[in-house]
């Protein structure tokens, strides 16, 4: 079989895997149409329920494997919230645990072959990031009143510099949801796009496809690490922002 090159180098379409398609038929996508995005988000939620609820159903003193995993994750996130946001932050632990579990499992489910990564879409991650931003800001204003503004007015700096620093701080405060969302979406999209591009090479090379396949294995392993780290980073940044809101002031 002769090695086949495409006429142009762009027979590879790595971005096609991110297109949202309706599941049944080809009609337009309305808010109630089941699409591949909703299916895989549902799978992620079911996986969370399966791990946390069904895993700990027996409540054994000597835990089974799923109960161990569920308890480990719970302790991990609990410790993270308590370390970073303090005792006052523990009241918001359910929200942060929800974020962590959904992002972790949505990312992991996206690694399965033929699946769809819901967190690779800006729509999903921006919703979560804006929700975090709005809730943290409103929380800070409600809890601390005008002391919330001391987040921007750095009293450790010399007095002439403070207005300039305040402007910079305000700008970087409003950039937070942007970077928060793009970080997760970009990481997920980049990982899967790279795998698809290498797969395109493997398809075009005939017997020499061993090299791209080994590269795919390496990138896939890296992707598994990145998936867990990105879920962790999203959650830990949420805790840092929460801490800023609950205990403002430099």
């Amino acid at each position: 079989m002769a090695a086949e090159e495409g006429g142009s180098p762009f027979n590879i379409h790595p971005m096609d895997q991110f297109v949202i398609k309706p599941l049944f038929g080809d009609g337009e996508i309305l808010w109630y149409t089941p699409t591949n995005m909703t299916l895989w988000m549902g799978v992620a939620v079911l996986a969370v329920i399966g791990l946390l609820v069904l895993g700990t159903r027996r409540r054994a003193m000597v835990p089974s494997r799923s109960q161990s995993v569920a308890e480990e994750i719970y302790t991990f996130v609990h410790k993270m919230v308590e370390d970073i946001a303090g005792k006052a932050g523990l009241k918001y632990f359910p929200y942060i645990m929800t974020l962590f579990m959904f992002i972790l499992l949505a990312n992991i489910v996206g690694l399965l072959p033929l699946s769809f990564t819901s967190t690779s879409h800006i729509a999903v991650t921006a919703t979560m990031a804006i929700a975090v931003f709005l809730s943290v800001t409103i929380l800070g204003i409600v809890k601390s009143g005008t002391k919330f503004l001391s987040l921007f007015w750095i009293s450790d700096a010399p007095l002439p510099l403070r207005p300039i620093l305040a402007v910079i701080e305000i700008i970087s405060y409003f950039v937070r949801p942007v970077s928060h969302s793009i970080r997760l979406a970009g990481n997920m999209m980049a990982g899967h796009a790279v795998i698809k591009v290498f797969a395109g090479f493997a398809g075009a090379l005939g017997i020499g496809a061993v090299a791209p396949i080994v590269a795919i294995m390496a990138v896939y392993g890296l992707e598994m690490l990145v998936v867990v780290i990105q879920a962790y980073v999203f959650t830990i940044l949420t805790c840092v922002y929460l801490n800023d809101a609950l205990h403002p002031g430099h």
Partner: protein
Amino acid sequence: MAVEGDLVEMGALIGAGLACTGMGGAAVGVGHVVGNYLSGALRNPTAAGGQTATMFIGIAFSEALGIFSFLIALLLMYAQ
């Protein structure tokens, strides 16, 4: 010799290639964070465990900018 094709597409692809140079800075930044963490951890191993969280936050911030530039490159290449 005649060059065929779309000038706009050429511009988009050249821009994508240029955008990828941003990832070099991100790689250096991530390596800097982790290298500093390692050198500190080898001097003071018991204090190192508590700072892994900080290291991961630092990695995330510096990697994010590399991802932004990769995103621009991907958008230019496939979603002109």
